[in-house]
C-alpha cells in the first residue's frame, strides 16, 4: 500500500491545480533571479541607489520583513516559554513564515553589499561596536534556529514518518523544542533591537539619532517592542489570508482573538512609548542640532507630517484601541482591519528610519535627496512574497501545519 504525501484526513486540490496556482509566483521568482544576476554580475550600478542613498529599498525591506517575521519568535515565546497552549495551533505556520522572512532578509542583504564574496568579513573581521555586526550574528544564528524548528514539521510528512529513524527524530526534536524556542527568543530580542540601533546610533543624522541607556539608543527597545507587537498580527493576518485562499477554516477564532489581545496591549504600550520618544526627540534632541520638527517634514514632495500622523495615530493608536476591546476582537473584519493598519504602521516606521533619515538634508545648502527604486530593486523586494507563496503552499499541502484543521473541516 502506498502512503499519500498529503497528511491524513485533510483535503487538498489536485496536482495540476496546485501547479497552476504556483505559476505566477514562479514567474516573479524568475524575474527576480534575472535581476539578481544583473546586480551580482554588473554591480550595484544596476540599482537607483547613489551616494546619498547608500541604504534604500532593500534595507527597508530587510527591516520590515524581519520585524514582521518576528511573529515566529514572539509566538514561540508565548507557546514554549510562557506556555500559552492556544498559540501552539498557529506556531507551525509562524515558524514557516519566520523562516521565509529571515532567509529572504539575508538574501537581500547579500544582494545589497558591494562585494558579496567578502560578506564573511562581517563574521571574521567583526567590529563588536557595530550594530550591523550584532544584526548579522543574531540573524544568521536565528535563521539556523528557525531551520531546526522547521525540521520536525517537515518530518511529520506521512511519507517521511514511515521511516522509523525520522519518526523518532521528529518526536525527540519536539521534546527539546523549548530549548530552541528560548534561544530564538533571546537572539530575536537582540537582533530586532540591533536593527533599531542601526539608525539610532547615527549621531551625525539627527532625524534618526536617539539617546538611550548605555550603548543602546531608544530605537533599540522600540524596534524590539514593535516587532513583538506586530509580528504575531502579521502571522495571524497571513493565516487568515491562507484561510480565504483555501476556503477552509484552519485556526479557531479564539486563537486569533488571543493573539490580537496580546498584540493589542503590546501595540498600545509601544505606541505610547513611541509618542514619548517622538516628543522628546522633537523638543530636545533635534533642536540641539539646530533642527525643528517641521524641518524634517517640509520642503519636499513626499515626507510630510502625514507620515507621523499615519504612523502614530492611524496605524498605531487606532488599531491598538480596536484590539484591546473585546468587541473589536470579536468582529473578525475589524480585527483584521486593525492588524493590517498595524502592519502598515510598522512599515512606515521602518521606511522613515531608513529612507527619510537619508533623504533629509543636513547641510543648509543641500536639498532633499529623493529616490525611486529601479526595477531590479522592486522585483527582488517582491521576491519574498513569491517565495512566501511557494513555501507556504508547499507546507500547507504536504505538512500537518494546522492541528485544528481536521476538527474545523469535518
Amino acid at each position, binding site marked *: 500500500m502506498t502512503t499519500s504525501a498529503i497528511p491524513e484526513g485533510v483535503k487538498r486540490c489536485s496536482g495540476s491545480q496546485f501547479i497552476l496556482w504556483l505559476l505566477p509566483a514562479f514567474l516573479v521568482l524568475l524575474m527576480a533571479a534575472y535581476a539578481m544576476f544583473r546586480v551580482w554580475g554588473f554591480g550595484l550600478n544596476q540599482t537607483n541607489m547613489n551616494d546619498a542613498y547608500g541604504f534604500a529599498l532593500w534595507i527597508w525591506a530587510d527591516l520590515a520583513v524581519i520585524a514582521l517575521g518576528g511573529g515566529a519568535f514572539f509566538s514561540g515565546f508565548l507557546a514554549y516559554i510562557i506556555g500559552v497552549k492556544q498559540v501552539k495551533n498557529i506556531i507551525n505556520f509562524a515558524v514557516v513564515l519566520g523562516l521565509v522572512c529571515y532567509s529572504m532578509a539575508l538574501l537581500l542583504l547579500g544582494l545589497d553589499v558591494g562585494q558579496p564574496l567578502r560578506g564573511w568579513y562581517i563574521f571574521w573581521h567583526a567590529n563588536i561596536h557595530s550594530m550591523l555586526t550584532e544584526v548579522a550574528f543574531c540573524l544568521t544564528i536565528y535563521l539556523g534556529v528557525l531551520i531546526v524548528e522547521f525540521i520536525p514539521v517537515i518530518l511529520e510528512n506521512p511519507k517521511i514518518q514511515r521511516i522509523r529513524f525520522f519518526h523518532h527524530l521528529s518526536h525527540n526534536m519536539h521534546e527539546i523544542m523549548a530549548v530552541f524556542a528560548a534561544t530564538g527568543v533571546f537572539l530575536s530580542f537582540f537582533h530586532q533591537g540591533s536593527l533599531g540601533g542601526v539608525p539610532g546610533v547615527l549621531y551625525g543624522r539627527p532625524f534618526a539619532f536617539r539617546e538611550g541607556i548605555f550603548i543602546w539608543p531608544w530605537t533599540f527597545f522600540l524596534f524590539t517592542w514593535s516587532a513583538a507587537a506586530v509580528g504575531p498580527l502579521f502571522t495571524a493576518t497571513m493565516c487568515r489570508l491562507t484561510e480565504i485562499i483555501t476556503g477552509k477554516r484552519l485556526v479557531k477564532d479564539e486563537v486569533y482573538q488571543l493573539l490580537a489581545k496580546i498584540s493589542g496591549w503590546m501595540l498600545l504600550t509601544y505606541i505610547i512609548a513611541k509618542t514619548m520618544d517622538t516628543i522628546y526627540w522633537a523638543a530636545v534632541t533635534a533642536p540641539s542640532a*539646530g533642527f525643528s520638527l517641521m524641518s524634517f517634514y517640509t520642503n519636499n514632495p513626499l515626507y510630510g507630517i502625514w507620515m507621523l500622523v499615519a504612523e502614530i495615530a492611524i496605524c498605531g493608536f487606532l488599531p491598538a484601541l480596536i484590539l484591546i476591546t473585546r468587541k473589536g476582537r470579536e468582529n473578525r473584519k475589524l480585527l483584521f482591519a486593525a492588524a493590517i493598519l498595524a502592519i502598515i504602521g510598522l512599515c512606515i516606521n521602518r521606511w522613515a528610519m531608513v529612507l527619510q533619515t537619508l533623504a533629509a538634508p543636513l547641510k543648509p545648502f543641500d536639498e532633499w535627496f529623493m529616490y525611486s527604486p529601479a526595477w531590479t530593486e522592486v522585483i527582488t523586494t517582491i521576491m519574498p512574497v513569491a517565495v512566501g507563496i511557494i513555501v507556504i503552499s508547499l507546507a500547507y499541502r504536504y505538512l500537518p501545519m494546522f492541528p485544528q484543521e481536521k476538527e474545523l473541516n469535518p
Partner: protein
Amino acid sequence: MQNVPSHTKARHFGMVIDVDKCTGCASCMVACYSENNVSFRDEESAKMLSLNWITVYKLTNGKPFPDTEVCYLPQPCMQCDGKEFGKPPCVSVCPAVATDFDWPTGIVSQIYTRCFGCRYCMAACPYHARQFNWWDPVWPADMEKYLSPNVSARTRGVVEKCTFCYHRFQLARQKAYHEGRSEDIKEEEYQTACTQACPSGAITFGDLDNPEHEVYKLKQDRYAFRLLERLNTNPSVYYISKRKWVHRMADNYLEGEVPRAFAEKEA
C-alpha cells in the same frame, strides 16, 4: 579603536580653509584626482554617482543683484574626531573594521581590501564625504601608466574617501627616519595635494596641536568655524569667513539663534 601607542609621536592633522580666499577654480579637485587615482567616467553629470574626495560647493547668499554674493566651499573628508575622541560617526558603525581612527595622526583611514561595501559608513556620515564605487574604475587609454604607485586603486563595490594624502605622511616619515630625524617631520614635508595645488592659498594644512604650525593659529581665528559643528562630530577641517551668511550656511540654526562668531558682537 585603540589607545595611543606610546612609541609613536601623536599628531592631530587638520586643515583650515579660508573660503573668502577660494575662487572656486577646483584645482584642489583636479590635484586630488591625480594624486589619489580617483577614477572618473565619461558621463559625470550625476553628482551622487561621481567619485571626488574633495568637492567644491558654490554657495550664494540668495539675494538678487546687486547684493548677490558667492562663496566657494571646498569640502574634503572632515576627518572627524568624533563625539568621544577617536570615535567618528563612520568608524564605530563599520561592521568589518574597514575604516579606523588613526590615533597617531587623527586621520580616518579606509581599508579598501577590507571593505565589503555595506555602505553603513556612508549613511553615518552627515557630510557625504564617503563615496561608493558603483562601477569598476576605467581610465582612458595609456592613462593607467600615469597612476600613482603610492595609492592603491579601488575596485567596484567598495567605499572610498579622502585620506589627507596619508601616503605622503608615510613618505615624509620614512624620509625623516632615514635622515636620522626619527619622527621629526617638518610642516612643509607633509602637505596634501589639494593644499599645494590651491593657487590662492586658501587651504592650509598641518598639525592642529602643534603651536609652530600655521593651522594651530588659524583655527583660533575669531571667524573660524566647522561644518555642522552642532552634530558633535568634531571635524578636523576648519573654515574661515568674515561673512555672517556663510557661517549660517555651515550649520543649522533655529529661529533667533546666531552663529557663534557673531553672537558676542550682536549681544
